[in-house]
């Protein structure tokens, strides 16, 4: 017993540098942020939360952020899920090639990528030119500075974060499970929903948590693709801290954003554990 304690202590000691770094660089600022969202005129309370959550404008801002987060997550999931299976089935050389193609866009800065979208979506951009030449529209559509443009751009920016976790799980799935299911009379649809989907779920959950938390907190892409027209939580946080000198607004919004993201990530974790157990 005594011996085991000593072991545990020495292992704990190894984590000390990381723990102290995280305490200093993450936990302390986070505690300060939470405290400043609770502090009103020198007293602690929920007044800030009551004020902002009772204001239809800020509820709209939270709704906008949730809308972006959920739409981006769903679109990237729909695109990445079949793609991950296709990738996993490719010969090894093709897998490496596709992986490289997925990684290369990640090395391009988000500003450059978003700026590219502003060119594509212009009235004389590729999308409008193609639609005009196909005779599908008579005059250029207004695409830039609309929520649709934002969701299209965000899905592009965050697609690799959905694809990679799903692919890494899918490629490890043992094909013999499918053969076994088939030998027991399961049809392709049944095999997909009852064998493949549950086995790929850990990857889906990792991808969903990543994309949702990144997209709900995105700042640059919304700013460049819709500007002020579509207020999001991250833009509101920046406004509070940087432009109007209202740290209470910034801190309160930041904590609300954190709670939403943490809830989604923890729920995903719970679903994953539940599935693993069953």
């Amino acid at each position, binding site marked *: 017993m005594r011996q085991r304690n000593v072991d545990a202590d020495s292992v704990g000691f190894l984590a000390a540098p990381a723990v102290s770094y995280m305490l200093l660089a993450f936990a302390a600022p986070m505690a300060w942020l939470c405290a400043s969202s609770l502090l009103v005129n020198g007293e602690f309370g929920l007044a800030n939360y009551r004020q902002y959550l009772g204001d239809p*404008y800020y509820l*709209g801002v939270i709704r906008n952020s949730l809308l972006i987060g959920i739409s981006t997550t769903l679109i990237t999931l729909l695109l990445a899920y079949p793609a991950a299976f296709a990738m996993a089935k490719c010969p090894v050389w093709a897998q490496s090639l596709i992986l490289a193609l997925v990684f290369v866009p990640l090395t391009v800065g988000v500003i450059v990528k978003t*700026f590219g979208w*502003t060119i594509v979506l*212009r*009235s*004389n951009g590729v999308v409008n030119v193609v639609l005009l030449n196909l005779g599908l529209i008579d005059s250029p559509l*207004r695409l*830039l*500075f609309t929520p649709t443009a934002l969701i299209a751009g965000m899905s592009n920016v965050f697609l690799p974060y959905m694809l990679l976790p799903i692919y890494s799980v899918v490629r490890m799935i043992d094909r013999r499970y499918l053969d076994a299911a088939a030998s027991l009379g399961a049809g392709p649809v049944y095999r997909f929903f009852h064998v493949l989907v549950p086995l790929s779920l850990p990857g889906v959950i990792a991808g969903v948590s990543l994309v949702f938390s990144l997209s709900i907190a995105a700042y640059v892409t919304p*700013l*460049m693709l*819709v*500007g*002020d*027209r579509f*207020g999001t939580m991250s833009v*509101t946080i920046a*406004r509070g801290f*940087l*432009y*109007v*000198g*209202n740290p209470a607004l910034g801190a309160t919004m930041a904590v609300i954003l954190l709670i939403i993201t943490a809830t989604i990530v923890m729920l995903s974790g719970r679903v994953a554990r539940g599935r693993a157990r069953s």
Partner: protein
Amino acid sequence: MTMTNKRRDLLVGAAASAAVLACPGVLRAETRELVVSGPAQLSKLFRQVFFSRFEQATNVKILFDEGVSLSHLEKLRANRNRPISSIVMIDDPVMVTANNEGLITPITPAAVPNLSRILPSAIHKDGAWINYMFPVATIAYNTNLLPGGVAAWADAWQPKFKGQVIVPTLQLTQGVLTLIVAAHLETGLPFEQALQNIDAGFTRLKVLKPNVLAFMANTSQAWNLLEQGEGSMMLSVSSQPVAARRKQGVPINTATPREGMFAMPNAIALVKNGPQPELAAQFINALCSDEYQSLIAGNLNSNPVNLHATVPAGFERANNLHVPDWEYITAHRAAWADRWAREIAG
């Protein structure tokens, strides 16, 4: 300016700041370096036009710490007890805050004799800070789309410009100018009194919404939209970069709207307790001199604040630029920003 250049300049700036931080004070005194904090987008022009000239004349090395006004303000606050910069060049509304917080120290006629040669409207709070140039804030337009130009601010409200007008957001310093113009159009009062009736500005700006292509927080992106013809005009912008872009063949120009134009607030101040105060005053004195001020129109496409300065042939000196009451604006900005987000942007 290309992205790579910007990044390189930024790296040089950062390395320079780091070097100054790392060096002991004695070493800094020996090499006679002057740290100036100022706007990143003007870094190259400042070096070409002013810094190289001053360095040659005085054997001083100027280290330019690049950034935006608000980041410089944060640095001034953080380094309050041991400032790194001697001089700070930021927008007037941010100067108001810096002055209220005691981060800058007055420029006196004793230390800067050329103060007597610049416009009284360029000297603020008894010399707490001064404007070193007045770029014009006006309307810029795409010459392919609007070959006839724009005659008035009121034109932006015409239905034919639906979805074509680019408007800077209130987060940007110049964003407030659109509100002042709107208040002027709604009330008929001069700009100065229109500012006191900003409600009217919100009312008139709401009517503009169908014509607005976007409310922009990023000026580079906004210029790009105008140059590419996605928008036909941009309100409340500094004319400063326009001349250089026109020379490169870009189809843009600035208007001279009949209601009047504004002075963009490019200000300079001495950092309180900053290093080398005499050298810093010497630089500001040089910047106010007839010689340096005569370089402003040709190189920076802006009005000199020194009326004795010459301007090249063909440069139209804009007299009677309106200088808004930035102190009043700074005091009300947070409340206006909140209204803007609710009533205008959404």
